[in-house]
């Protein structure tokens, strides 16, 4: 063993190089590590020299070989820690290269890779021992040094700081997942971590437990060690022998898993969790620790009286029988030995369901088995709000080839979302049917139905010069069929013409999505403030972009090429809708917001006139109003809400295109949309071949 104390395995200032850094998992994990502690100086991957692994904290340079990495990296940044992420068959070669070129530089190699053969593992141990390099693994998840805010590997997952707060316990675990899990239980009990270590649990663990314990004993910030142990190997037996003969100054809390393998002839998850001899079984390990501690395993219901015997036993430690007793056992030891907890705030360890729906069966259960939903802790509670916008898409993936929620036909009755088509024909309007088909529900009232109808009417046309009308006319002029003319109309729609409504919905959700608004047709006193903030945010973005000389994203659906010349501009079609809402004694907070916004943009100097709120905005505001309740109640995907205004416009224009077709068909002449050659300009000079 080269390391003399735990921090020699990882500390602040260590420099990490990663093999196969461009791999799927390696690149993801390294990006998080880099954001957490910026300790990766580079990586290597065969054939990938010159690449970069992009991370939020800057790119990680990739070299073709480890040798090249050393040559291209300044001496003071030469790596002293290596993280191996290569496939099993490549691991031995990677280690040999590291030993060959990094003998005097590298102190520790962490091998994440699973399924490395045991023969290769033994060879790695031998060559690294001779080179005075410590090896952790194979199949380790890595290590975290919380006080130094440094990690190697994936301990702590995507948010290491969420689970690992500086404290007094080192967790040493045969299971990578358990490092994280145990640390989170300890944190809830007000106990932080000094180190979290995944030993790996292949058939050979190249850094044995007794060596970890020797280092942990010397670590001044570690007051107690939590061990998670599985069957297989004599590591615990050897460690106990060491502690018994040399003494050990720090208490341990131990959980031994895997006694199930004594009862059933099964293989456990980890390759090394194989009972080869009696002393490697779970029961033998339990007995070994109990014998060393001199106290029976922790009993949660027992009242421990502070006696010299208890102090003596707990200064060695105690074994727990349930994982969730670990933090209570640590607390018992801290209280008994007079060790102060790291944090004063604690959360009770208890059943805390986040979501419950036990249905009818739940009513028959005793109360303790049918708990009500508890409080969801942060950051998850906020994330659930954020996820509302995105999670619904693709929630229930299923083959849709012959299935539809929207329509059905049982051989007798065609239906839309369950409503008989014949009933709709006799009792409802076309607009109601369309709203049903698109949203799954009939319009709430006549007001909503009429508003939707207005958006269709307003979308029919804006004169023969619009490109959508031109599409229909060109198609007719070429001799196409009616449906082709309608397709030509639709083909001229895009994100700029007609599709801006989707962006408008996005913009409105950005501003209103997190607010507790139940009915968008009622006055909302905060609309002015939201509009002012949006206007000011836009001004900042615009100014910054202009200073940087880059493009910036415009606010969607403001201004119009026709209605733009007055000090205060209006799109007359939008105005009809707006006035109808007001005349009905109602409001639409999204449209109100738009009107406030154009004024604030003028006031803060972003525009020199009050821009028109155009028809696309009105369509978006109307349809978002119709969809609002379903979005809030998570019965509709946000992407559907994006699409609907576009579809409303497209449906209107397709009908408009049909009108243009009929007109052009009756009165036009063949090819009359063709522009005479004399009217076409060439922008390129003639050239000779």
């Amino acid at each position: 063993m080269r390391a003399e104390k735990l921090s020699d395995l990882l500390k602040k200032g260590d420099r990490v190089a990663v093999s196969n850094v461009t791999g799927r998992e390696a690149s993801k994990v390294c990006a998080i590590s880099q954001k957490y502690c910026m300790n990766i100086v580079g990586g290597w991957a065969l054939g990938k020299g010159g690449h970069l692994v992009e991370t939020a904290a800057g790119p990680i340079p990739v070299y073709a070989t480890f040798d090249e990495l050393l040559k291209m990296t300044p001496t003071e940044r030469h790596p002293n820690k290596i993280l191996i992420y290569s496939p099993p068959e490549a691991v031995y070669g990677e280690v040999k290269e590291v030993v060959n070129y990094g003998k005097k530089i590298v102190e520790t190699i962490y091998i994440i890779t699973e399924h490395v053969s045991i023969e290769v593992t033994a060879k790695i141990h031998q060559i690294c021992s001779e080179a005075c390099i410590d090896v952790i693994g194979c199949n380790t998840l890595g290590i975290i040094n919380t006080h130094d805010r440094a990690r190697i590997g994936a301990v702590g997952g995507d948010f290491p700081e969420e689970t690992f707060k500086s404290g007094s316990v080192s967790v040493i675990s045969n299971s990578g997942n358990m490092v994280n899990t145990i640390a989170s239980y300890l944190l809830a009990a007000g106990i932080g971590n000094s180190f979290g270590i995944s030993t790996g649990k292949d058939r050979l663990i190249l850094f044995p437990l007794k060596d970890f314990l020797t280092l942990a004993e010397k670590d001044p910030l570690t007051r107690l060690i939590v061990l998670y142990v599985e069957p297989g190997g004599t590591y615990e037996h050897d460690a106990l022998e060491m502690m018994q003969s040399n003494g050990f100054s720090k208490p341990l809390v131990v959980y031994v898993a895997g006694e199930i393998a004594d009862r059933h002839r099964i293989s456990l998850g980890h390759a090394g969790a194989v009972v080869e001899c009696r002393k490697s079984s779970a029961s033998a390990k339990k007995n070994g620790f109990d014998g060393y501690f001199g106290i029976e395993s922790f009993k949660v219901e027992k009242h421990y009286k502070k006696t010299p015997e208890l102090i003596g036993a707990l200064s060695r430690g105690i074994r727990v029988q349930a994982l969730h007793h670990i933090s209570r056992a640590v607390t018992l030891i801290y209280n008994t030995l007079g060790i102060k907890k790291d944090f004063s705030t604690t959360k009770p360890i208890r059943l805390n369901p986040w979501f419950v729906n036990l249905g009818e069966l739940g009513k028959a259960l005793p109360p303790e088995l049918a708990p009500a939903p508890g409080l969801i802790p942060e950051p998850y509670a906020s994330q659930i709000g954020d996820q509302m916008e995105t999670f619904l898409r693709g929630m229930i993936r299923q083959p849709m080839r012959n299935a539809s929620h929207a329509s059905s036909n049982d051989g007798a009755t065609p239906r839309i979302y369950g409503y008989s088509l014949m009933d709709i024909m006799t009792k409802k309007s076309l607009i109601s049917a369309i709203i049903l088909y698109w949203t799954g529900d009939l319009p709430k009232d006549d007001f909503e139905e009429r508003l939707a109808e207005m958006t269709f009417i307003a979308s029919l046309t804006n004169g023969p010069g619009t490109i959508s009308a031109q599409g229909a006319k060109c198609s007719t002029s070429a001799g196409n069929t009616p449906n082709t003319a309608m397709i030509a109309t639709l083909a001229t729609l895009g994100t700029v013409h007609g599709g801006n409504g989707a962006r408008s919905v996005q913009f409105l959700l950005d501003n209103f999505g997190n607010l507790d608004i139940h009915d968008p047709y009622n006055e909302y006193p905060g609309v002015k403030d939201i509009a002012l903030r949006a206007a000011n945010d836009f001004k900042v973005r615009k100014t910054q972009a202009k200073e940087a000389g880059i493009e910036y994203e415009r606010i969607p659906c403001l201004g119009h090429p026709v209605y733009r010349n007055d000090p205060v501009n209006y799109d007359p079609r939008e105005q009809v809708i707006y006035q109808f809402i007001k005349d009905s004694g109602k409001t639409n907070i999204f449209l109100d917001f738009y009107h406030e916004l154009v004024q604030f943009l003028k006031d803060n100097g972003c525009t020199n006139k009050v821009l028109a709120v155009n028809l696309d905005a009105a369509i978006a505001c109307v349809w978002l109003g119709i969809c609002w309740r379903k979005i809030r109640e998570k019965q509709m995907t946000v992407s559907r809400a994006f699409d609907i205004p576009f579809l409303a416009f497209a449906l209107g224009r397709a009908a408009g295109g049909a009108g243009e077709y009929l007109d052009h068909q009756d009165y036009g002449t063949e090819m009359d949309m063709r522009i005479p050659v004399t009217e076409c300009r060439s922008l390129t000079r003639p050239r000779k071949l």
Partner: protein
Amino acid sequence: MALRVTELTFLDFYAPRYGIPVPRHIWGTSEIEEIKRALEEWGGEAIVKPDVLSGERGKAGSVVSVKNIHDALREIKRVSGVEVDGMMPRIAYLVEKISSKMEIYSAITYNSAFLAPSFTLSLEGGIDVEDIQEENKVTIPIDIFRGLDAYQASQVLARLDCPKDLISTLSRCMVSFWDFFISTGMEIAEINPWRVTPDGRPYACDFKGIVDEANYKAKVPGVEFPEYPESFSDFEEEMRGWDARSHQGQAHVSDIGGTKILPILFGGGISTIITETLESAGGRPMFLSDFGGNPPYERMLGTAKICFAHRLAQAKLLLILGGKANNTLIDVTFQAIADALVSYAEEHGSISTPVVIGRGGPNLVKGLLAMKQALEYLKLPYIIFGPDTPVTMVAEYAAKLVNAFESIEEVEK
């Protein structure tokens, strides 16, 4: 990633290839005339043994001495049909009986104390190594690059007071044993006993070993590892095949005979803990599973589909439980499980199995919401926990819940 090797495979393939002296043998499925001839050549006496993946053959009464062809044929038939430690033999076979003046134990294995191969020898062969007194056995580490040499074997034999006239022969046998071990990707190999004839010739008279399938040397040309009949249930067999198709993520199950809870578990360590907790709390899990290791969507989907196809119809409760994952993407894995559940319901009609979920890790919220949505769609009763509730508490709760549901159902009936 480990494959057990029986004596018969050792006799058929390995021993002749590496010059390890073994008694002559013949398969019990051979022609009667051939068996008869073999018996005559061997002096009329032989041992009938089953080819089975258990080291408990002697204790099961399945190793039988025979002295004539009639006994031999009868015992071949009987032994090949008798379970040993819950496992059915593949076939029975006969080996020549070796008379001996002494029996020797030998094993080569990777040793967690040395972090290297080790060689163990005792002159008290024929019994379990752990029943041999410490002073009567010697274990030495072997340099993985240099291997075991004759001089080292002779030193060990000398320490055990082996008769000097046997040391040379036995040392050469041990070197052959090492050559075989290191050339074939073995992880554990035990020859017990070597029987030494009165005239000083040693024979390897029983063998068991484990091949490390992660070692490329395990694929020795010409060596075929036979399939054994009863080893796995259809469920385990299908999952093993699925597991072997990819290294991305675990797909490991072991039947443990429970009848109540179908456990979809994640993580090598935590799956063990949860299963133990379920057992001790009366949850009677159907199997032990580990589906951790960050499986991609398609992988997890396939895994969940296999679980549901084989066990969901019998399950009283579905438990989806893991700790706070470091790597595994919860949205991907849970979406896959949700989709598999929906597919199952569409193929098999509506289901009513209650579902208990507990998990933590990357993209947790998205994953939990995906599951919640699917469960609501399927109208299944459910309860979902986050990482703030320990997995063992969730497992205890699930065990209590399944028993309470059963009681309610019984009352309703």
